[in-house]
């Protein structure tokens, strides 16, 4: 970017130097001078509607709105004069003239900008004796309510829905003092239900269906955690009272998501208290799962694992890990499988080819992985596959913001339509599954397309070759050699290219990075490498076997044939994921152990089910799809369930007593994270920054780029979750699934959904 010209001006007697074009309100904020405002919202279009930010400027006869006034050389601004104070007081008085002042029963009471401003700048009495306007509150959706009398018409909601979300579900009705915010369907919203309008509302006009009239904000404690649903790692603040999550929102904008949060992060928390939550271990007796004590259940698991291990050897045992469990749990699971049980039959549902990217980049990964901030800042983004609006909502938000704020150029290749294409300079819609072929054409000009697609590709190629710095995003459509094609294509761009593989779940990337893979150790260390096996073997107090294990899909096949006798599943639902829910499956298994929150399809078939805590109920770290690591905290105590960390640790002790492996000595996730930081490539991160609520980029990669790493066919695939689904977990998010929009997939044939989604 070109060097910004600097200008000097004075504000409240302080000399300020700032870049040309800076708004006075922003310059003041940086000086620690508060200029109050309602309608001004950084990143959204300017309104100058609320008139709270009026300031005095020398040589200007009228007060000026600091939110639209650009600081110029020599300008003298005063924000503390009597005239300015009077103006603020008057604006508050005008605002309150039709405001119901129902603060005692308003959700926003205690965290309301109007309350705060009135407290700080307002009059201590009312001079208004006329009858106020009134209208009843409106339910716009199960998640969004509108209370018109409280609305101060700052239009933040309308703007964030239009500019931020590109949904345009809100408008303004009537005019003058009768103006109201309108939903896009009569009395009803048809939208992404992101709830951004609720967060951004400075007053209690827009309230959340999950939270309204439940509590007062000062009765709650607040825990900022990465969201447990998709792979983007947005920070959501859990508002907790009496060990119950009452609300999730974007309280302080301190996460990598800035002010963004989607429906899942905001409304998808009530699974924690779902009636079907398993709160007690279950053991199959006489063909039925029955409640059991922790002692009995763990004893049963240990005893039968030991028996199978003795009778059939470690290769007869398989372990399937999770996309949701923490890095520390994945690390423990790795040790548990390879050293305690002695098997490399370890895998998880891979939703993006992170291993493919890491092995293709090798040491270059360190400066070649794009963060969420990189997506926003990029001059250009190439997006291949994946419907980011549905599957990676923060990525989509970053792209939209980049386009809006600094003209980011989006190029897309996709086998299906996506709303994000509205933002694109060039969007090439290829045949379903044709992304790979289109990419090959871009790299080699080999391949046949119809005339229209060819024309679009030619246009795309020319545009890309004129770019310098590009962020490349790709979904599960691109894996293995295609990733290498992509990297060689990017060598033709004139600048620095960064990559991001787009996966599905909260710790999809962490599972890969921490080596929940049959052929890779933590940090993508090759299993074939004896020194790496030795290194981890020494660390884990045993020997890492050298034979590569089965993929998750292969393990599931092996259960049918009886080649696998025991399957240990942690936080996964492979029967559903791999499409094997028919009754004859798992027939050859002697033991199926499942850690889960709910009786999933897989858990229903288990011999032992151990109730597990969610990420909102335990400590640890999660790695988002960009490789950004964040701490997750125990926001509430899981009453009954235990963390997977504890379960694996305790079980290792049980097994140790039976003579199988050595007990895991790491007592806490913190201790495990320390071991990870010291031993897993790319995870040597600053703990201090994480403790402060920040994120650190983990560039997990192998020592050298590998020319031919290829995940087995069918190992990497997206689960095609969309805005209102979240794998098995999503089914237990009652609020999330309560909206009209949640009832059909955006990619279905239903014209209904097309109408709400692509409008």
């Amino acid at each position, binding site marked *: 970017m070109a060097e910004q010209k600097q200008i000097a001006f004075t504000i409240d007697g302080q000399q300020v130097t700032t870049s040309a074009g800076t708004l006075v309100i922003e310059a003041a904020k940086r000086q620690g001078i508060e200029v109050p405002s309602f309608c001004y919202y950084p990143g959204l279009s300017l309104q100058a*509607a*609320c008139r709270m930010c*009026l300031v005095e400027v020398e040589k200007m*006869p009228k007060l000026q709105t600091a939110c639209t006034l650009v600081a110029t050389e020599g300008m003298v601004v005063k924000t503390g004069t009597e005239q300015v104070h009077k103006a603020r007081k008057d604006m508050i008085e005008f605002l309150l003239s039709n405001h119901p002042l129902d603060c005692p029963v308003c959700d926003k009471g205690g965290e309301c900008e109007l309350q705060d401003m009135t407290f700080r700048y307002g009059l201590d009495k009312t001079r208004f004796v006329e009858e106020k306007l009134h209208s009843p509150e409106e339910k716009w959706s199960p998640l969004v309510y509108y209370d018109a009398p409280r609305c101060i018409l700052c239009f933040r909601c309308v703007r964030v829905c239009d500019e931020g979300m590109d949904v345009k579900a809100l*408008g303004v009705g009537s005019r*003058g003092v009768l103006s109201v915010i309108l939903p896009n369907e009569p009395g009803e919203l048809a939208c992404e239900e992101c709830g951004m309008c609720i967060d951004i509302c400075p007053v209690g006009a827009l309230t959340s269906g999950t939270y309204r009239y439940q509590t007062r904000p000062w009765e709650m404690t607040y825990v900022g955690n990465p969201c447990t649903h998709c792979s983007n790692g947005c920070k959501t603040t859990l508002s907790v009272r009496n060990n119950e999550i009452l609300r999730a929102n974007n309280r302080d904008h301190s996460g990598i998501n800035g002010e963004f949060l989607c429906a899942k992060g905001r409304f998808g928390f009530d699974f924690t208290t779902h009636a079907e939550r398993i709160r007690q271990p279950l053991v199959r007796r006489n063909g039925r799962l029955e409640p059991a004590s922790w002692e009995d259940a763990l004893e049963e698991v240990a005893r039968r694992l030991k028996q199978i291990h003795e009778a059939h050897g470690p290769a007869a045992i398989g372990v399937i890990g999770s996309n949701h469990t923490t890095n520390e749990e994945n690390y423990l699971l790795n040790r548990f499988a390879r050293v305690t049980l002695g098997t490399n039959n370890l895998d998880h549902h891979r939703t993006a080819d992170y291993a493919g990217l890491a092995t293709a980049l090798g040491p270059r990964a360190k400066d070649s992985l794009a963060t969420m901030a990189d997506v926003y800042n990029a001059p250009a983004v190439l997006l291949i596959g994946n419907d980011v609006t549905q599957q990676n909502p923060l990525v989509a938000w970053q792209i939209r913001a980049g386009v809006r704020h600094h003209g980011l150029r989006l190029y897309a290749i996709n086998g299906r339509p996506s709303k994000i294409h509205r933002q694109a300079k060039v969007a090439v819609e290829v045949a379903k599954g044709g992304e790979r072929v289109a990419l090959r054409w871009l790299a080699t000009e080999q391949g046949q397309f119809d005339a229209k697609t060819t024309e679009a590709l030619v246009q795309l190629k020319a545009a890309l070759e004129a770019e310098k710095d590009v962020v490349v995003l790709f979904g599960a459509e691109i894996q293995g050699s295609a990733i290498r094609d992509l990297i060689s294509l990017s060598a033709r761009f004139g600048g620095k290219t960064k990559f991001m593989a787009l996966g599905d779940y909260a710790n999809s990337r962490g599972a890969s990075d921490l080596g929940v893979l049959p052929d890779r150790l933590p940090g993508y260390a090759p299993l074939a490498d004896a020194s790496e096996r030795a290194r981890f073997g020494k660390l884990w107090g045993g020997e890492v076997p050298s034979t590569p294990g089965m993929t998750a899909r292969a393990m599931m096949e092996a259960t049918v044939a009886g080649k696998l006798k025991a399957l240990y599943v942690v936080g996964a639902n492979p029967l559903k994921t791999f499409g094997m829910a028919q009754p004859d499956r798992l027939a050859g298994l002697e033991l199926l152990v499942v850690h889960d929150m709910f009786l999933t399809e897989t858990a229903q078939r288990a011999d032992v089910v151990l109730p597990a805590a969610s990420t909102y109920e335990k400590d640890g770290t999660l790695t988002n799809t960009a490789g950004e690591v964040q701490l997750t905290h125990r926001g509430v105590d899981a009453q009954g369930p235990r963390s997977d960390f504890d379960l694996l640790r305790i079980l290792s002790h049980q097994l140790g007593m039976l003579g199988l492996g050595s007990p895991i000595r790491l007592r806490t996730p913190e201790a495990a994270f320390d071991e990870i930081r010291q031993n897993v490539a790319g995870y040597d991160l600053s703990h201090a920054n994480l403790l402060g609520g920040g994120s650190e980029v983990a560039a997990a990669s192998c020592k050298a780029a590998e020319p031919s790493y290829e995940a087995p066919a069918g190992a990497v695939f997206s689960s095609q979750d969309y805005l209102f689904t979240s794998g098995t977990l999503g089914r237990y998010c009652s609020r999330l699934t309560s909206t009209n929009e949640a009832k059909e997939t955006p990619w279905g044939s239903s014209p209904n959904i097309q109408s709400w989604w692509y409008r």
Partner: protein
Amino acid sequence: MQLPAPLEAKFKELAGRYPIKRSALIPMMLYAQDQFGFLGDEILEEIAKRLDLNMIQVEETLAYYSMLRRKPAGRYHIQVCTNISCMLRGGNELYQHVQKRLGIGHKEVAPSGTFSLEEVECIGACTGAPAMQVNYDFYEDLDADKVDAIFEQLQAGKKPKPSSVTAGALHERLPAEVPVISKRFGIPNSNKIDVYRKHDGYRALEKALKEMTPDQIIDEVKKSNLRGRGGAGFPAGMKWSFVPKDTSKPKYILANADESEPGTCKDRPLMEMDPHQLIEGMVIAGRAVAAHQGYIYIRGEYRYIIDIMDAAIAEAYANGYLGKNILGSGFDFELVTHTGAGAYECGEESALMESLEGKRGYPRIRPPFPAVVGLYGCPTVINNAETLSTVPAVILMGGEAYANLGTPKNGGTRLYSISGHVNRPGIYELPLGFPLRRLIEEVAGGVRGGKKLKAVIPGGSSCPLLSADEIDVAMDYDSVAKIGSMLGSGGTVVMDEDTCMVDVARRIMHFYAHESCGWCIPCREGTAWLRKMLDRFHGGGGRAEDIPLIDELAKNMLGRTFCPLGDAAALPTISIVKKWRNEFEDHLAGKCAYNAAEMIAGAH
């Protein structure tokens, strides 16, 4: 949806009229409403589909404009104006009479479906007050008998003859008048191109295209000291000179004919009797700034004027004054009309552009100014219709000669629409600097019925009011400003000694509260609060502390609102409280000395 053929043709034409489809939204809605009586879901969805809009975009635009409705009105929609000029001449009484006769109130539909009633804001018939519209037809100079006759004809299925031209526009020329832009008023068929050409028509354009460079045109307009006739009085030539020369963007000429300032009705006769003059002025303006497209934004209530303008535009195209290669000069200029749909705020230039883009008429943040970023984000000259109508005369007679008709810095002549309690309400063209006293006493024939003068609004209801002892002022921008008011739009409203000034303040505030767009807090809440207070005060519920409060609330709006509408509401109020405070104090006794009790009770 299958549309009736004429509407389908209209939609097709509208869809192709603008560089962005959405611009057709408001006209489409209004014409569809004319067809169906209201805007139902089906037609709105059809319009949304044709214009690639979401329904919410359609709904929110519709909701802004007071002429557009979601529910059916009667076959005859009766719109009685009670704004200031009409009020002074019995508009309230007339409205009550109509209510009684029809048995319905504001925005109600008679059970038969024949009639619906609406009390409306100024319809631009101030010199023919009191007035009403039946659908789009104007009926002026009314009284109860005339209204009864109109209803009898309507009920008999006949169409009563509407007022032929703006009442008060045609009269014997007075010696004081200097007809420049009104010189063709009264000539039979003056709206026809042949007549126009016979009387100097299009000679200025020929001169501008063949003998002058664009810079010379701007210079001539600068020399003329022609200042904006909409109200703000900004020098037109200077405005034109702000338009960037080096730009790859298209440029636009906009005529602001959204005439809605209460007391003002001069663009209406200008367009009705001399439409070609405006067209000629716009082509010359286009030539001056190298713009090739013009729009005339005409308030929706003036439908018959739009039809006259459209016919004149068609004539101009047919005769080579519009279109490609005008008069062989190589200069191209396209021109169309655009209908508003009921919003005073759209007279504000940036709100007008939003409206022309098919959106709610919210004003825009400035800078950037329209000359640089205007309609469709492109450089735009926007002038009042009267200002642009003056351009041909300026070119023809020369800037200096035109300037010399007026006073220094206030060139030429302008139209005054003088209404209220005078003997000869009407539209008169007078030189700038003409004494207000002579305007009232000589031109308008003095105060009606030999009464004493109490107050004058010099140029539309946004101006601070002048008291009887302030009328020795020259009517030019600077002189009127010097005594604390504004020349404004030339809508002079005269009030006699029997006028209740609290009622005047109340009625003026009703207007601004009705027209506040709702964008900014002080105007939105301030006008609504003041309206409620003034209603209560005039109705006998006033408290002593209300008088300073009314004054203070108005001052709290002043200078702090997003656009000038807040000032427009505040200024007359402040002046009334200041100059006629005694009348407020008199009301504290509980009754109004001027208005009959039933009129106060009947006021909304």
